[in-house]
């Protein structure tokens, strides 16, 4: 196994990081699937207002890294810190401030679009029905809100899954291939949300095979490519 040197900071550092300490610190993390080591000694820091784009071929460990960052997976070695604390010991703070959208949408096909988002909102402590209906409208699913999710298209389901980001006010967004199956309109909507999240000092970590198109995203973007 060759140790990977995976920091390739392809873009300039964002402007506002001069004084603020990094919020997310990844410290020589090692990730594996089975007996195969995917990456080791991976370290990077992310501050508020930054976007991390993880690239790499299939099987390079992008999803594994995201699952480590959100706390679903324990790294074989190394540590992930959120505001200076190990995310395993201060798991509840980290979970409260983090939203993860995996490659599976996490939607129930026997519930309607609205019901799905309502459950998600209630589970994240949001009881404002207006937030839910606004989010549905914003995602372009207003006409479909009473349809069972099983009857929606893959792209519509993906949009609805991303609706989680709008109903839970998390600082850290971790997104696994958010643009899969999504059309141009949907992509614009999501990129706009990413920009406004970053402008509000949020942090985004995402994997995507496509390059980010919006210039405002690119200027805040840091890229790591896994081999």
């Amino acid at each position, binding site marked *: 196994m060759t140790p990977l040197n995976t920091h390739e900071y392809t873009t300039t550092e964002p402007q506002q990081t001069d004084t603020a300490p990094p919020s997310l610190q990844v410290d020589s993390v090692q990730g594996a699937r089975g007996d195969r080591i995917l990456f080791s000694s991976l370290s990077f820091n992310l501050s508020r207002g930054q976007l991390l784009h993880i690239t790499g071929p299939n099987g390079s460990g992008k999803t594994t890294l995201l699952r480590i960052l959100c*706390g*679903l997976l324990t790294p074989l070695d190394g540590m992930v810190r959120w505001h200076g604390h190990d995310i395993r010991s201060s798991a509840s703070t980290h979970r409260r401030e983090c939203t*993860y959208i995996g490659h599976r949408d*996490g939607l*129930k*096909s026997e*519930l309607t679009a609205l019901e799905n988002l309502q459950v998600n909102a209630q*589970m994240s402590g949001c009881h404002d029905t207006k937030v839910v209906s606004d989010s549905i409208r914003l995602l372009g699913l207003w006409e479909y809100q009473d349809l069972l999710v099983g009857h929606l298209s893959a792209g519509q389901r993906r949009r609805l899954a991303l609706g989680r980001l709008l109903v839970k006010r998390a600082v850290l967004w971790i997104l696994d291939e958010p643009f899969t199956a999504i059309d141009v309109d949907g992509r614009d909507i999501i990129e706009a949300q990413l920009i406004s999240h970053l402008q509000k000092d949020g942090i985004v970590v995402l994997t995507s095979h496509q390059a980010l198109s919006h210039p405002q995203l690119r200027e805040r973007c840091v890229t790591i490519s896994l081999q």
Partner: protein
Amino acid sequence: MDGVHNSAMTAFTTIFRRDVKLALRHRSELINPLAFFVIVVSLFPLGLSTDSRTLLQVAPAVLWISALLATMLSLESIFRSDYEDGSLEQLVLSDHPLFVIVLGKVAAHWCTTGLLLTLISPALAISLAFPTQNLGILVWTLLLGTPTLSLIGSIGVALTVGLRRGGILLALLILPLYIPILIFGASAVDMSIDDLDVAGQLYLLAALLVLSFTLAPFATAAALRVTLE
């Protein structure tokens, strides 16, 4: 502190209502365990005899074992579909204590299986020549026993949910743990037919329920965190 308590309660009711709604929209999954219960019980007169004394002799065991197997076959619905569509990892990552979510899911499972099995059990008991004045005890034992079956079963499902073919393995894991409940439940029904005092067994069933209620959700939560890795 009150706020924390409140939000945990909200999480419980949200999950409970979501799962009950899902079960109601998935009629077949709701009805299958009941149909299984009815069919298995009705196999016994066919395979054994229609003599009412013979039937009455085996009735407590038949009713209890059939209810236990019906519960076991329905257990996968607690976590399986949530695992497959990715909802489970979202629940694990939610900022509520996982054991509260587990309790909500187990409570919904019991209401949509164990409770319904208990409610139809008198009809099946009568078909096995069970004396009507003892139906109350049968219902009581099932009412106290089936929630424990769901609670212990949830540990088994949580441990096997990541495996493609967990069915038989699940049976191997949890049936040994079901033995005490079967012993106390079936013997209470059996002894009530002879007009013996069965308060002891009912207390023991209640004690097992309390014990599993306090411990099983934590074991299930720990198991989910492990198997979702």
